[in-house]
């Protein structure tokens, strides 16, 4: 591009429009982060569904896989930050939303693990207990521990949140539609037993992250090839 070329007003305006468009479509995310989370959350959810439905245990908590995915995610984030030649205004806000999402999921996990035990202790201190009573009296009453019923529905609800914001801000329809479908899955999960909630959660992770991740990856690779 030469500097000293005389421009007409129309040419100036066209140049501005062209450059703004170039900046807009300047980069696509690699999609690896979305693929990673879509994969681990789908696997963990589906394995949990099978474990609960067919009453077996794979020998370790499958959700540790999700916890372990934080390490590659940090590496991916650092590498992507290094390779990005341009920083957009919305990047910081979206990073903050995904960080808050991570903290919320962690907090909800902690809630799920801590609250039933603590509630049991308070109940014991008060000198009473929760009991399972069969209405037809075919079985004797059984003492039960406190539990958080159908909490995975809340996870599904939270999966949709950062996905919807990202879809709206980036105008990325696969995430936008993925999030809207996930809200539908959340409503559905309110009416199903916990086992099915896991299956619906697996579907949510697939729709919210894995499928958009595949689309992002394809776009990114196509852009890389175009730049060669």
């Amino acid at each position, binding site marked *: *591009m*030469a*500097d000293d070329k005389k421009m007409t007003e129309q040419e*100036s305006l066209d*140049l501005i429009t062209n*450059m703004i468009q170039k900046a807009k479509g300047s980069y696509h995310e690699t999609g690896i982060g979305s693929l990673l989370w879509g994969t681990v959350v789908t696997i963990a959810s589906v394995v949990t569904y099978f474990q609960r439905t067919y009453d077996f245990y794979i020998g370790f908590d499958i959700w540790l896989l999700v916890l372990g995915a934080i390490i590659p995610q940090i590496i991916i984030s650092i590498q992507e930050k290094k390779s990005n*030649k341009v*920083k957009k*205004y919305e990047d910081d806000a979206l990073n903050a939303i995904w960080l808050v999402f991570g903290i919320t999921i962690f907090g909800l996990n902690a809630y799920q693990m801590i609250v039933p035990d603590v509630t049991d202790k308070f109940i014991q201190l008060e000198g009473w207990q929760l009991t399972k009573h069969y209405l037809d009296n075919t079985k004797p009453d059984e003492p039960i521990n406190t539990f958080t019923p159908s909490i995975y529905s809340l996870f599904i609800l939270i999966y949709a949140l950062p996905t919807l914001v990202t879809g709206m801000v980036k105008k990325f329809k696969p995430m936008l539609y993925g999030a809207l479908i996930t809200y539908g899955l959340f409503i559905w999960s309110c009416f199903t037993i916990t086992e099915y909630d896991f299956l619906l959660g697996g579907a949510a992770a697939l729709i919210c992250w894995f499928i958009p991740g595949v689309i992002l990856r394809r776009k990114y690779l196509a852009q890389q090839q175009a730049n060669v």
Partner: protein
Amino acid sequence: MFKELDPILHSQLRLAVVSLLIGVKEAEFTFIREKTNATAGNLSVQVQKLKEAGYIEVTKQFKDNYPQTTCKITPKGIEAFEAYVQALQQYLQVGKE
């Protein structure tokens, strides 16, 4: 009365640089070079002119042992760009009449 077109911005390459930077928070020199198809030497000169006018901020640092130059539009640059676009629209409006 027509506003005069800002001579700093009314140049193909400098206008291209500012138009690129208006929509992003910051961009590397190599990114601007790719998008404008300018030579490094010419771009350096024009970036320097924009910097001297106070329209952009230029940060030089080292990343993985390589020098990295990052450009960012300043509030003064945004103001000048908006005034330039407004003046352009005025000219074009008259051309249509």
